[in-house]
């Protein structure tokens, strides 16, 4: 279970790292892009920033859900 949890963790970590890296590099090398307002008058800086925070909450919830799914059958195993 440990190795499976840590594998799921690493996959989700890599996804987040890419999205966070995208934000940081966009800021550093194309800061004017952050000013575009694609949706509802909100600019990329606000959308991407909120996305990163809400995304972190959602990914952590997903991780908790996936880990629980995996550990449940294992707990039952000895009884079987």
């Amino acid at each position, binding site marked *: 279970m440990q190795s499976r949890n840590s594998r799921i*963790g690493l996959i989700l970590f890599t996804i987040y790292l890419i999205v966070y890296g995208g934000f940081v590099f966009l800021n550093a090398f194309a800061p004017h892009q952050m000013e575009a307002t694609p949706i509802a008058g909100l600019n990329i800086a*606000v959308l991407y920033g909120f996305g990163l925070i809400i995304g972190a909450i959602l990914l952590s919830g997903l991780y908790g859900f996936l880990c629980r799914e995996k550990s449940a059958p294992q707990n039952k195993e000895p009884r079987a």
Partner: protein
Amino acid sequence: MIHELSWKAVIFFSIFVGFTLGLSFWLGRKAKSSEGFFAAHGQIPWFVNGIAFAGDYLSAASFLGICGMIAFYGYDGFLYSIGYLAGWIVALFVIAEPMKRLGRFTFADALDSKFNSRGIKLAAGISTLAVSIFYLIPQMVGAGVLVQPLLALPHWAGVVLVGTIVIMIVVTAGMVSTTWVQFLKGTLLVFFSAILTWMILQKGFKVEKGGNDGYEFRTLTVTVDDLKNNDGTLGGLNNVEVLPIPDGWEKTKQSYVHLLDREMQHTTLFHVVKPATEGDLLTLTEAQTVTKLPNGGRLINGLPKGTGPDQAVLHPIGYLKSLPEGKSETGPVSPLEFFSILQQSEVVLWKNEKILHADKSETTVYFQKITPGSQILRPGENPIFKGIRSDKFSDKINFLSLMLALFCGTASLPHILIRYYTVKDESSARRSTIVGIASIGFFYVLTLYLGLGAMTSGALDLSDDNMAAPLLAKSMNTWLFAAISAIAFTTVLGTVSGLILASAGAVAHDLMGSAFGFQMSDDEKVRVAKISSVVVGAIAIVLGILFKDMNVSFLVGWAFSVAASANLPSLVMILFWSRVTRQGIITAIVVGMVSSLGWILLSAEAFEKVYGLDLLKTPAIVPFSQPGIVTIPLGFLTLIAVSLMTPRREES
């Protein structure tokens, strides 16, 4: 601005402190063993531990610093919110469960779990102390800064007050009481910030000509000839006279006009806004000044500071110049409208310039800068982040380095890591981190509303950006101000108690118990930890008083860089690489710590802010200030190289 003693804040603060100390003494009966003192017997429920993570992590820098930075510059402070939260992803996905599995009281336990090495305990113990002390200084200085306006006490009294309360919390029941203090603080901080945000949205936006003291700043439209003629009228004002340029004002970066009101015999300073094209009219906007006299006195707008006749205080600021479609107010707005409306509005921000006079007095001029909302909601306006708009590659690397340190630093902070030992198993460690991420993430979303709400609240104090959030609350309701102020103060309590406990664990458990090999019974170990808490607390009090006049918020950033460089390589590699050796870990911690500290001490930021050097005369030695992008990989490389050069444990 002069802050009066707020009895309501005192009442709130006293209730919180009294309740916490009572709880600590009551819980103290349960925490007599080292297991209880360092790890609360591993019996803290995961949900409580999760909220306590928020209470531990959301320091004064997060609450006051980020809100203040957003209120004065816009979006930039939110970059810290994003980076601070992203660090929790590393904590959850990589560190949390193994940390619980491998360790007992401190993160050095986890590093040392395969080796039983005194060297690892020594290196990790010293690194814990270094990071915790770096982190403690700004918290203690923050306590002193807060207490002045809220409780009308001098700076040192605030530092001593916080230091004493925290020492009592930690000594009575160690991790048990620390956890509950942090749980309470985390709950109150998130709850009241949410209420404040809701009130900001209900209030909406309104166009104003000044702050909430009712004073309207004047704007004059003149020609260059009007200024030269100086015939007693200017831009619609009568019986006024343009004064010659006084001492010290000859070489200012901005242009100013000193205008004497002949009837009142009072001079007002106006900032000259240069026209876009030659021949256009000049706009003069009213400025404000604070002059520090050589004898320590203060002049505000040329008059002694005070509220009596012939005295002056700074007028509060923070208002909109215009709203979209020429509206004068919006009424309640939705969370998304809040940004789309601000994006199309104009906000009056205030910039400043310092002027030195021959008599050694120093004047800070605050002048208006009308800024489009689209600029406020984009990164790169604050001096710390202006590098992203620079053409210099090193400025961009500095930004990348800071964002990397924030990302890697959280999961390497000793006072956060010890919280993994307070729950019963790995599953609880995971769940509590998820609760932590949800509550901390929710709070960080609110920081953008709180900061921008403060920016347009009409309540900002130009001379103190740390007070943005409490003053925003004051503009809504005095009871809310009292609650937010007391919470800001307890924010310091929660974080400081975590830091002192982490330091005490490093001294008693890692250094004395393991590295130096003192044989101690369980009781003795707890006693040593309590004595260490008192000593570290006393050191924190002294440092908090010594660093009083220094802007120390950047020390939190340094703590993140040192923690990430010294601790993260070992924490990660011991989990994912079986070839790691004892020597590899020790060298990586030492190299990471020394290189990041050395880099910081040789950086432009330290030259300017710590040593007070002029960078034009003494250029910094390292090319950019933030070390992480160099020293974090250096830590990993050192660990890998030394591990490969030294024999595996089985073979040694």
